[in-house]
């Protein structure tokens, strides 16, 4: 499965929850599949989906899912120790690991070669790190959201993209409606 197929499959699981979605194609795909006010689309700042979602999880009690990619996690590896050492039970980090920088033309990442993000996250001190194959993600994600323990999911899948338009929503609108959903 490629990322857009995975997002289509897990959209009903994500829908009731606060989601911080990675820059580029992941946000565009989620926006196309199930746009709603509980989605925070990153329009810039590659790598910070994990940190933004984690700050949100620490600041309030609702479940938060950060959707990240292997390339983006590699950009901001330093946040994994921060997440591990301040674990928040309402936080799930979903890393869609297709071994490539999808939004920029599928250049290979080191996660697709020798580097294991599961081993990295574990070494950083994260206690619940699960590797899962794309087709098996749904129940694993649901369990992680329902659990009181923070979970890092590394979902292995194929690289590949679909053609779709950029998000034209104003960033302040994305942020405002998201904050209203947080408060609701």
């Amino acid at each position: 499965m490629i990322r857009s197929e995975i997002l289509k499959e897990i959209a009903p699981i994500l829908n009731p929850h606060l989601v911080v979605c990675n820059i580029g194609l992941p946000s565009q795909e989620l926006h196309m599949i199930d746009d709603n006010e509980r989605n925070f689309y990153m329009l810039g700042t590659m790598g910070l989906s994990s940190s933004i979602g984690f700050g949100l999880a620490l600041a309030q009690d609702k479940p938060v899912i950060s959707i990240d990619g292997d390339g983006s996690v590699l950009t901001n590896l330093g946040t994994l120790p921060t997440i591990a050492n301040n674990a928040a039970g309402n936080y799930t980090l979903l890393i869609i690991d297709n071994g490539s920088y999808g939004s920029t033309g599928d250049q290979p990442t080191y996660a697709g070669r020798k580097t294991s993000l599961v081993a990295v996250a574990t070494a950083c001190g994260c206690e619940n790190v699960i590797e899962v194959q794309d087709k098996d993600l749904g129940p694993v994600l649901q369990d992680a959201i329902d659990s009181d323990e923070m979970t890092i999911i590394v979902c292995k899948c194929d690289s590949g993209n679909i053609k779709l338009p950029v998000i034209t929503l104003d960033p302040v609108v994305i942020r405002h409606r998201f904050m209203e959903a947080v408060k609701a």
Partner: protein
Amino acid sequence: MNIDKKIVDDLVANDVSFVTTVPCKQLAGVIDEVENRDDIFHIPSNKEDEGMGLCAGAFMGGKRPAIIMQNTAIGVTINTLATLTQFYRMPLPMIISYRGELREPVACQVEMAVHTKALLAQLNIPTYHFHWQKDVEEFDNILKYTFMCNKPVAILTDANFWGGYGDQ
């Protein structure tokens, strides 16, 4: 006057309850003070752009955030400031140790000091420079201004302000 305590008192009085820090010798006292306050959740960051991401999330979660870091971080965080904090219009007080200014002993620090105000000006970030201890009296107003206008705001605090780190 204990400026570490005054800074953190002002943070608490302005309802800032989520503070991330990247350390600097000059900031050690204020970071200790942040760590010891029950009213503040202190989360050290490994890099300043990560810290700004944490602050963005905390703000959307209903908390008032702040970041404490060195001026070298301006070189690290320009993209984050422009495409996250400013683009989504989020408030962020940045308490910045202004290394490389008067009474600085480390020459390399001057290399970023000479760019610091120019970079902040280029980003249209409101910038205040604390050089004398009495300048801290403005801090409360700066915090109110930051959360009024939903912008990142820089407070540069040099060695003279902190009591002359480096020439003792």
